[in-house]
């Protein structure tokens, strides 16, 4: 069979905090809620563990979108982690936007352990957004794209 028309499948990296969002992702699975396989989750203890370096690294290595999920503000397992993460990501995303990187490629979403449905919905929506944007060209590293 001939594979016709190469459909663009984005690569999406999702950083999920262990206590809320990763559990939320598990719940989405337990409830059999579909979202695209383009999303790959990396477990971190807390959203405040996410270093801007990781996000840039993902783009360098070929990610088309990066999303960070954490506990809702105020519900952080470590009390304050997501508040710091929120400031860091706000500033980082604003900077990426300022440098002309499409702002829709980065996102933060707060997903609790009980919000499996929200997790799936968020991922569906994010994948759709990134798919529309197409391949990440503005923050790519050509060396990593050569196959």
């Amino acid at each position: 069979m001939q594979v016709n028309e190469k459909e663009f499948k984005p690569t999406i990296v999702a950083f999920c905090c262990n206590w809320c969002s990763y559990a939320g992702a598990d719940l989405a699975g337990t409830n059999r809620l579909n979202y695209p396989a383009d999303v790959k989750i990396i477990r971190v203890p807390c959203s405040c563990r996410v270093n801007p370096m990781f996000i840039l690294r993902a783009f360098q290595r070929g990610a088309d979108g990066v999303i960070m999920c954490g506990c809702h503000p105020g519900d952080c397992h470590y009390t304050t982690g997501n508040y710091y993460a929120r400031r860091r990501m706000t500033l980082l995303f604003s900077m990426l936007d300022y440098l002309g990187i499409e702002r829709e490629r980065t996102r933060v979403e707060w997903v609790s352990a009980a919000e499996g449905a929200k997790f799936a919905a968020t991922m569906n929506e994010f994948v759709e957004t990134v798919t529309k944007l197409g391949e990440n060209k503005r923050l790519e590293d050509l060396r990593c794209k050569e196959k």
Partner: protein
Amino acid sequence: MFKLSLNNLNDLFKAAAEGGALYIPADDGAGQARFTRWCDGMEMSKALKTVKSAKEFFFPQTESLVDFKMKGKEIEIIDPRTESEDFVVFGVRACDARSFSILDKVFLADPVDTYYKSRREHGTIVTMACSRPEETCFCTAFGVDPTAPEGDAVCYMTEDELFIEAKTEKGTAFVEKVKAVLTDGDAAPVEAQKAAVKEILPKLPLANLSTDSFGGDKLMELFDSPKWAELSASCLGCGTCTFVCPTCQCYDIRDFETGHGVKRFRCWDSCMFSDFTKMAHGNPRLTQLERFRQRFMHKLVYFPANNDGEFGCVGCGRCLSKCPISMNIVKVMKTLEGESK
């Protein structure tokens, strides 16, 4: 000697770019000049010098050496070199032109650096005599004549005309190639310009800079001078001087893991960097003083010691204008003058 009206410069470039790449100094949008691949209509910069020297045509800032492709546990080794295109670098000043002979001594000596050699073979250098030297120029101290640059072909630019003269086989080929846009030229305006510039040269503030205190035989006196401490005290350890220098030739070899394999590349290194020549055991030059000293000792002592007295500096003056703290080879030479007597 051929000439053409400056009004027709674009025609010359067009002819030169035929079947290959042409690089000319062009303004970079930030008020400075850099060698840029010519495209139709691009104008040549009026600046005396480009920020980076022309050495990158033969010794690029980063250059792939070998690619390793990994598939599972299999590794494939690939030579990434693809360049076969001939290119012309136009408008190289005398100082930069001299730097190529210095770099050749390093890269073309046994063992020959084939990456460098290949680029050197593909490149034709068309130089441009200086008409407005600046206060930072001191090429004459190193025996460079800015009015008579080396190169495959030499150009002189007067008010309204450009004169061109081939010096080598490659230069003749170049002139042949662009001959259609040239007319025969008379050497008189060129000589007049040379004379005018020669008038200016002695008036340059650094005209009297002397290399007498330096050379391959001055090693120990200079190495142990107590003055290195104050000279290096304010050095930031950045690589500006090194990266704008036409003769600095140190490089580092690094591996970049791409996810599908490894790209081994070399990139310019700077002796000013804290990890310069870092080896498995650590770093032999641990302080900024030692690294700072290395740079100047290399240019003024080690290089002449190994190359029949030829200094590793061409007096372009880039480091004088670009050092963030205005420390430079001239200040070093002036301070150390007399140390070796």
